């Protein structure tokens, strides 16, 4: 059952979409920055919001769906509060990033197909190169960069974030 706070949050978010659309003058040509802003607000692109954006801009929902699925930056699935990006570029790979990925998957019960924990706390993503090869293997959690991470440190980091939410 929905709590009043959730309702308030959803309402707040909805007014945000309208703000975003207005910020870009409701121009169809600005669809990508609009979707970026929507994703920043919601952490993903909810279906009903995409439909609303499409209708407001006079683009077909099918085309907006096409744009949203073309770019890997966009997600149609809800993402976790903490997005763990593990660099799997050449340097990080050589330095053991696959071990980190396995560690995270084990700790958070994620898999190749499941990237987000059911409690919507964590999402695991791999990225091709963060441009921080000197710190290999590198991990970024939201905006915070962690360098030369060992498997043990990775487990500890996850525990820390979990503790913060407990």
């Amino acid at each position, binding site marked *: 059952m929905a709590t*009043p706070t959730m*309702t308030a949050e959803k309402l707040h978010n*909805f007014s945000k979409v309208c703000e975003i659309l207005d910020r870009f003058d409701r121009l169809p040509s600005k669809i990508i920055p609009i979707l970026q802003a929507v994703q920043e607000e919601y952490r993903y692109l909810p279906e009903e919001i995409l*439909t609303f954006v499409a*209708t407001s801009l006079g683009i077909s929902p099918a*085309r907006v769906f096409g744009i949203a*699925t073309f770019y890997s930056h966009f997600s149609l699935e809800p993402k976790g509060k903490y997005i763990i990006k593990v660099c799997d570029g050449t340097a990080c790979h050589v330095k053991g990033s696959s071990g980190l990925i396995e560690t995270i998957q084990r700790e958070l019960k994620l898999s190749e197909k499941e990237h987000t924990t059911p409690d919507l706390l964590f999402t695991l993503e791999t990225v091709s190169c963060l441009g921080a090869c000197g710190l290999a293997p590198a991990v970024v959690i939201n905006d915070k960069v962690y360098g030369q991470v060992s498997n043990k440190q990775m487990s500890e980091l996850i525990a820390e974030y979990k503790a913060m939410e407990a």
Partner: protein
Amino acid sequence: MNKAETITINGKVVPLEGEKNLLSVIRKAGVEMPTFCYHSELSVYGACRLCIVDIEGRGIDTSCSTPPRAGMSIKTHTPKLRKMRKTLIELLLANHDTSCTSCDKSSACKLKDLAADLGVKEIPFKKTREPRKPDLLSPSLLRYPDKCVLCGDCVRYCNEIQGVGAIDFAYRGEDVVVTPAFNKSLAQVDCINCGQCAAVCPTGAIVPRSEIDDVWSALADESKTVVAQIAPAVRAALGEMFNMPASSVTLGKIMAALKYIGFKEVYDTSFGADLTVMEETNEYLERRRAGDNKTMFTSCCPGWVKYAEQFHPDLIPQLSSCMSPQGMVGSLSKKLLSQTEGKSEKDIVMVSIMPCTAKKFEKDREELSRDGSPLVDYVLTTQELGKMIKEAGIVFEDIAPAAADLPFGLYSEAGLGFGATAGVSEAVARYASRALNNQELSSYEPVTNEDFPFWKEAIIDEDNVKIRIAVVAGLGNTEKLIEKINAREVSYDLVEVMACPDGCVAGAGQPVSYDHGIADKRKTALKNAGKITPIHCPEDNPYIQRIYEKMLGSKPGSHEAHELVHTKYQSRKRIDNDSMELAVTDHEAPVEINVCVGTSCFLRGSQDILSGMTAKIDQEGWKDRINLKATFCSENCSHGPTVTVGEKKMHKTSLDSVVAEVEEQLGLVTSRK
């Protein structure tokens, strides 16, 4: 000949005559060039790469996207090009669902033909994809993504010609797929079922839904009386499936085949068209008499009707209330047959044979049913009829003609004219002239609008008949027309809309054809069929008169006519399930409140209602009794903000009026009432 105006194709000099691309020049020169993604009426896409040519000094390039330049020398079928084309087909076949023998498009599949023509013997590549689920929910069209070659013809047709955009490309790289938004079914999005996507599809990735098996079962059921009706445009194209010239396909042959198949009575939808002329003209004149000067739109095209319901619900009152001809014949014949056969209408099965896939959707409309049973039970396309004739083992070329059954089998030239663009409006204009001026209209020749070449118009001003008519085909063109009418840049009394360019003769239920001139050939065949029709005017059709006397209150627009052959329309959402739950309870009998927060309602203050309502729910402790949802456009923009409380739809609402309604529905204020 001036050398500057020629190019050389395979050593042969070919003159340039303003062609936009090399491909057109090559085809003009009599060279066969395969394409998947090129259609002259659509934008150039250049994706299938089959039309590659070797241009001297430039190398290999696609001929569809290369403008011809004088002096060019090109080769079209070098060993290298042939090999490249073959590899392209092999790659396309790698993940293709090659269940060709059971594919609906088997007899007209470009991919299958090309694989054979190019000598593909085996597919050297492994499957790399998991099979994808077909979309089988739409009443009109089935999608098989694993048969798609990603040429995008359907996507561009839907966007560019129809302006609907129900399908588009999604994902990328190997995962690219043509799909409705959010991987929904065509049945759940704003598809108008015109089926032109299927008509342009080179493979079996989108095909019309077949109802052949249902019809065979109905025919085998002895408790049912199974009858058929056949639309005007069907007879103009059926011969294509039997390699017969259109002129040799007479209605008599079709009637005989239908009788052989087992239909008890066989009618002609043109009878319904005759009736439509009478009712629609009368409706138009009535509207004018009542002081309604708004444009009236025709309603015989189900693709257009659904388009209007989705995108222009404000125009619904301006749609003619006449049922489509198939609905009229279904309605009247079921009523009459139930009397003569002494059966319930449920046991009379009406099968329509239509050139159209949207008619399959139309038959399921709630408005086209009586006492819970549909007025039309099944819709077969021209293609399906051809297949049934073959399944029944009929040698169609040799079958002796039979007559249609009365009363719904007799029709006039005017009714038959419904099968092509301008036919409906011409019949209405001519009937109006005979009714009001007591003489024939001098001529009816719609001409292209000078400022807007997207539609044709006929401005009639003869004595008592002053009608400005627009004739438009293709919904992209229709959208432009509506825009100009709304902007008051043009004004018309009557607009005839056909969703398919060229009208029903080019409907998606017609036999598959890649011949660009096919629509004109069918139009000619239909015209010729009209010329040999002994009755020219609907009002001279004796059975029309008889039906009016017997069933329709003796005159157009009567109460009985409104009961039996007029209909209603509904505002439709473009996409299913697009509401956003704001406060949902699991209480047993909650009151559901839907607040429209579409652009227009938003501007009119629907958000204040939402936030006010949320606060009120908290304050009054109603959260167990109310579901509050935001919907994204209830298509009532001009009356916003729109809110539904329970069953009640409220327009121009304020927070107070919504709260008052909620309190009443919660049973809190019965005393105040």
